[in-house]
C-alpha cells in the first residue's frame, strides 16, 4: 500500500497539479528562485512571496535506479526510479517512477516527460520517455 503525502498549503499545488495535467513548481515571485520541495519562504531572499507555476513537464535524467526489492506488500518489481532535472526550474529535481518503458532502458541524460498517477487526492508525477 503506497503511503500518501500529507497535503499542506505549501505542497498542495505540487501534489494536485496533475489533476489538470500540470507539473506545478514553487518559485519566488521576487527573485525567481525555483524552490523544491515547496515551502512558504524563499531560501535565497527570505521573502514570503512564493507562487507556483506550471512548468513544461519535461526534463533530463540526472540519475536513476532500478528497484528489485518489494519494500511493501503488493509492490510490483522491478521498476525504475528516475531523478530528473526539471526543465524551466533550475536546481529542481523530481524523483519519480518511470512508466511506459522497460526499466533496463532508462539512462542518464535521457529526456523525460511527466505523466500523473492519481491516488485519492494526490496526483503523483511519473516519468515516461519523451520519445
Amino acid at each position: 500500500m503506497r503511503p500518501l503525502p500529507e497535503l499542506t498549503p505549501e505542497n498542495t499545488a505540487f501534489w494536485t497539479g496533475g489533476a489538470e495535467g500540470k507539473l506545478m513548481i514553487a518559485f519566488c515571485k521576487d527573485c525567481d528562485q525555483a524552490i523544491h520541495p515547496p515551502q512558504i519562504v524563499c531560501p535565497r531572499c527570505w521573502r514570503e512571496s512564493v507562487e507556483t507555476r506550471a512548468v513544461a513537464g519535461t526534463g533530463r535524467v540526472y540519475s536513476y535506479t532500478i528497484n528489485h526489492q518489494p519494500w511493501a506488500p503488493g509492490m510490483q518489481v522491478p521498476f525504475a526510479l528516475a531523478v530528473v532535472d526539471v526543465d524551466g526550474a533550475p536546481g529542481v529535481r523530481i524523483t519519480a517512477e518511470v512508466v511506459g518503458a522497460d526499466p533496463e532502458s532508462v539512462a542518464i541524460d535521457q529526456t523525460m516527460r511527466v505523466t500523473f498517477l492519481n491516488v485519492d487526492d494526490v496526483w503523483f508525477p511519473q516519468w515516461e520517455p519523451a520519445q
Partner: protein
Amino acid sequence: MTMNAAITGVGMSDIGRKTGRPAMAHLLEAARRALDCAGLTKDDIDGICTYPGKADNSPGMSPLGTGEVRNALGLKTRWHSAVPDGPAQMAPIMVAAMAVATGQARHVLCFRALTESSSQTAAQRASIPGAGRARLGGWYSYLVPANAMSASNWAGWMAARYFHEFGMTREHLGMVATGQRAFARHNPSAVMQAPLAMEDYLGARMISSPLGLFDCDVPIDGACVIIVSAADAARDCARAPLTIEALGSALGSQETWDQRADLTTMGAHDACADLWSRTDMKPADVDVLALYDGFSIFVPYWLEAFGFCGHGEAKDFIAEGNIGPGGRFPVNTGGGQLSGGRLHGFGLLHEACIQLWGQGGGRQVEGAKTAVCGMGGGFIAGAMMLRRD
C-alpha cells in the same frame, strides 16, 4: 585544536539477528561493558545522550530514549539530551563532547540501541521511514510515496551517477564488501563471518541497481555505548584516553537525498572539510578509518570526503588495496555494518577505539594511534578524528 574531551570506554552487546532480547537488555549489557572498559561505575556517569531518542519512525529504529534508560539503570544525571536533528548518528557524541568540555558533565554515556531485526517482517520492513502511517510529511514525503521507499534506492541513484561520471563498477564495490568481510572473519562479534568471494558478491540478487544484497548493511538487534569524558576526568580512567582531536559537522545542502547539486558528493564532504579546518593533522597521519557503510557506495564517498584520495579516484584507491586487510588506510576493520551489523555508526566508532587501544586481535592494525570516523550517508554527516597520545 584538540577538544577537552575524550572517549574513555566502549561497549557493545551481543548483537545478532532476531535475538528476541528486549532492547533494554542489550543496552544494559553494552553499558556494563563500557563501564568495565573505562574502569568506571554507574555512579560516575553524570550525563546521558543518544541519537535520535525514542522514535517509531521505522520499525525497531530507536526503541529507547534517555528517559527510559535513566529509569532502568537508576542514573542520576546532571545533563541529558537526545539529538534527532544533528550531524548524523554522531550527533550525541559530539554534543556530549561539548557538554563535558563546558563542564556540564564529567562522564557521558552515549548510546544507540536498535531492534530492527526483531521488528522486521515481510510486511513491515526496517528502515522505511513513516512505515504504517497513512500520510507522510517532511523530506521523505517526496520520496517514499513516489515508491522510492528505501535508502537503498536513494543510495542507488547516487551510485549510478557516480558510476556514470567516474567509471566505477560493481567490482570496486565488491572489493569494499569482500575486504570488510575478510576483516569480519577476525571479529567474533560480527554477524556475518562466512567467507565472501567476489563471485558471491556479484552473484547475489540486485536490490536497487547498481547495489546488490552485499552492498547493503545488515539489520540487527543490539546496543552500543560510548563513554565521553572530560579531559581531566579521563585521566583517571582505566585506559589511555582517546582524545577528540577535531569534529566536523558542516552541511551545505538541503535536507533531501535528491536535490544536492552534485550527487557524486554528499554531506560527508562538507563535514570533512570542516574537520580539517580544525586540526593541523592530515590524512597521511591517519592509521585507522571508520567510515559509514550503510551501503558500500558510501565508503568511496567518505574516502574522497576525508581527502584520502581525490574526487573520482576512490575506485583506483580501492583497487590498489589501500582499504582492506594489510592496506595503508584500513577501513572498517571490524567488518563494518556490511558484515558486522547496523549499529548506525556506533559500531564503527567502537571498532576504531578498540584499534586505538590495540585490542583488535587478528585484525589489529599495528601501532594504530590515530583514527577518523565518519557517520552518515546522503545529506547527513558527522566527522571525527581521535588520537591516542
